[in-house]
């Protein structure tokens, strides 16, 4: 069997290794235009901040690929012919496949703000190695930077720029930072923390126009509020979109909406073509979704490979969980977060003396989500409790078991318990 994978990200690489483990004789080729070897996109910021070299970002020793007989091709795929089962590369070469996996990941979302198109220098994204190179190129000639976009990539870029001593203005559209996942209380803790690092974080600011100097370099942005922010570097981190545009114009395009539409077993609309990772869009509870996180891409890569091998696979995303770090504050969340569901009750407690908090959401007597800030927790406990439909009482009483802080540094759960008791039956005075 001749397997070809487009994309050497975590989805593609996990798929390749899964295929190899099961089929010692198969031919496996992995093509990517971005890099020779699989690297960890999630660690881009550490390369930017001189904590790692690009080579350090590679999760496997290079010789693993030779040993596993996975042929690596560094090129961009420009055409796909599903009737002939061939791919055409930018270099002009053609590659034939019997089974194909599309694992093309995503790219930084671009918006069409006035002025942006004509910017010659100073506009950056933070998703690919090219983006990183671009950032590094303009960093020395920058003293003020503006970053737009209140998500995780935005705050990572902000941290990098602050590290490099830039005066950073951070513009987010919503009234508070990251309302998609954080309630106001947590957001306040984080906002305060980010500001303490010298970053000027502004809520309710939306870009209206990108201002350019005579040489075409960014010199600032004007917000819808009318305020102008001067900068020599504009970081756009308003989200990522599946890297599928090139697929819309190939000879036989698969069905694409936001991402490549796939069945629960990762089949696209084309025969013998599967898709997985950031680029795939699948149905969940009657809605079409793309999951653009590392854990999903890894899981999908493995499952898609199994589907390609002929296993019966039905992808059902597990209970959602994610983690992040905002400068020094660590964050773990599990289950339904963001807007509390209809008819739910929420317990929130700020842990005294720390930039830490606990949030537990309960609906119909069962905990449906937790949001934890500033301490370490083992999310697998939360997953289990949510699956077992445990009550809030139960979760608070067992919270200790889920603690994952370093030795000698456990957060005082007693304070949480006391605050919970008070919240449950407030003593009237």
């Amino acid at each position: 069997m001749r397997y070809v994978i487009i994309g050497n990200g975590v989805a593609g690489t996990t798929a390749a290794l899964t295929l190899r483990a099961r089929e010692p004789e198969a031919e496996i080729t992995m093509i990517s235009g971005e890099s020779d070897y699989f690297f960890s996109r999630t660690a881009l910021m550490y390369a930017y901040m001189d904590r790692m070299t690009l080579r350090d970002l590679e999760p496997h020793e290079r010789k693993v690929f030779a040993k596993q007989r996975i042929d690596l091709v560094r090129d961009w795929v420009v055409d796909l012919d599903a009737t002939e089962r061939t791919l055409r590369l930018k270099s002009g070469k053609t590659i034939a496949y019997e089974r194909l996996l599309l694992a093309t990941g995503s790219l930084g979302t671009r918006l069409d703000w006035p002025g942006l198109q004509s910017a010659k220098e100073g506009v950056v994204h933070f998703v690919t190695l090219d983006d990183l190179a671009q950032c590094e190129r303009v960093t020395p000639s920058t003293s003020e930077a503006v970053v737009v976009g209140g998500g995780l990539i935005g705050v990572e870029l902000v941290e990098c720029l602050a590290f490099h001593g830039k005066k950073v203005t951070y513009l987010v559209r919503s009234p508070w930072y990251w309302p998609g996942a954080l309630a106001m209380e947590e957001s306040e803790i984080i906002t305060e923390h980010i500001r303490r690092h010298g970053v000027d974080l502004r809520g309710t600011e939306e870009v209206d126009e990108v201002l350019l100097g005579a040489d075409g370099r960014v010199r600032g942005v004007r917000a819808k509020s009318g305020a102008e922010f001067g900068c020599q570097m504009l970081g756009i981190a308003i989200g990522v979109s599946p890297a599928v545009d090139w697929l819309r114009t190939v000879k036989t395009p698969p069905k694409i909406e936001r991402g490549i539409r796939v069945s629960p077993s990762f089949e696209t609309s084309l025969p013998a073509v599967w898709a997985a990772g950031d680029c795939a869009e699948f149905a969940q509870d009657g809605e079409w979704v793309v999951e653009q996180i590392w854990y999903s891409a890894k899981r999908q890569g493995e499952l898609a490979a199994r589907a390609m091998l002929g296993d019966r696979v039905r992808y059902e995303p597990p209970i959602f969980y994610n983690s992040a770090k905002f400068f020094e504050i660590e964050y773990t969340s599990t289950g339904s977060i963001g807007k509390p569901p209809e008819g739910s009750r929420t317990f929130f407690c700020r842990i005294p003396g720390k930039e830490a908090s606990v949030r537990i959401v309960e609906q119909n007597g069962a905990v449906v989500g937790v949001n934890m800030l500033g301490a370490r927790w083992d999310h697998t406990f939360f997953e289990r409790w949510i699956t077992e439909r445990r009550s809030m009482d139960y979760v608070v009483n067992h919270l200790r078991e889920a603690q994952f802080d370093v030795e000698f540094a456990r957060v005082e759960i007693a304070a949480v318990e006391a605050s919970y008791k008070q919240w449950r039956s407030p003593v009237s005075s």
Partner: protein
Amino acid sequence: MVREGKLSWLTHDLTHRGVTAWLLTVLLTGFYLVLYYTEVFTSVARAIGLDSKWTFYGLVYTSAIVVGGIFVLRKYRHNRYQVVRTSVVMFVQAVFAFSIPAILKFFHQPEYYFSYFWPLKFDDFVPGTIFHLPLVYILYSFLGSLLLVPVLGIFFGKRWYCSWVCGCGGLANTAGDPLRHLTSKSSAAWKFEKIAIHTVLTVCVALTALLFVTWGVGNRAPALARFTSGFQTFYAFLVVAMLSGVVGAGLYPIGGTRIWCRNFCPMAALLGLVQKFGRFRITVKDNMCISCGLCSKYCEMGIDVRSYAQANQSFTRASCVGCGLCAEVCPRGVLRLENVRRRHPQELALVQISPARGGSRVAI
């Protein structure tokens, strides 16, 4: 990307095998050679009122640990494990490895180092030396080496010694902290480590046995006595002077801080074997690793921590000194040092994790 400015350039150069790092290495190895084979530092010591070049060396070494330790305490002040551990290692060095021996010497008592045990401090186990000491020292030496070291190793792993007590580890984890990431993470380096460290341990045990036999036989076999003494001199030159001093500390700026501990220290080898059967392990949180690689990068023992973390595999590696820096740098809180009561037998198997679990450690 390196930060702008001359100071940033210098720090980067010094910590990334630049010109200044090489210069420092030449300086450090030179220092050790001069210390061992000349009397230059004897006169320096006398000039500042110390009795010998070894006391002078002890003072320099202890100062490096204390000053470096203060920086480390500041750097990791948010992490209680690091604060406690660093304070202990500084305390042990200043008190047990420097002050107490100096005081003993001042009062014309035998100069005894309570923080060192066989097989690291060879002399404390050599019948010819130890049996001349008062009984308490003999007891401390034998019980310490044969009982205390392995028993604590079973309960807490080798970390109780290698990153909480030992002076070699102490220097690595204080003054050496900015250089910790230089240790090679390649599988080839791991292979070399396993061969080298167990060879030294074997040689060390053989020499100890030989010393006891020679002592038991007494004057009856002068040829044996000559051979043993030659063997001992050879060991002192190669292992103690060259590998632990010149190579171990001299090459910090090039090879990282634990060259000696990782590849050559017989004590680490022994404790490593104990650790494999003890309670210590690094617990990996299931499916939370983002493969960023910070843990591997900052492992001073060259363990590719990421390869376990991304395969969701809790593990106990013989070489792990339990410094806890992987858990400190991990941005997703994936790792935790633990002393667990019961372990999964699978953790003891060296490698071979199925790629189907998302990892892809391949047989090495």
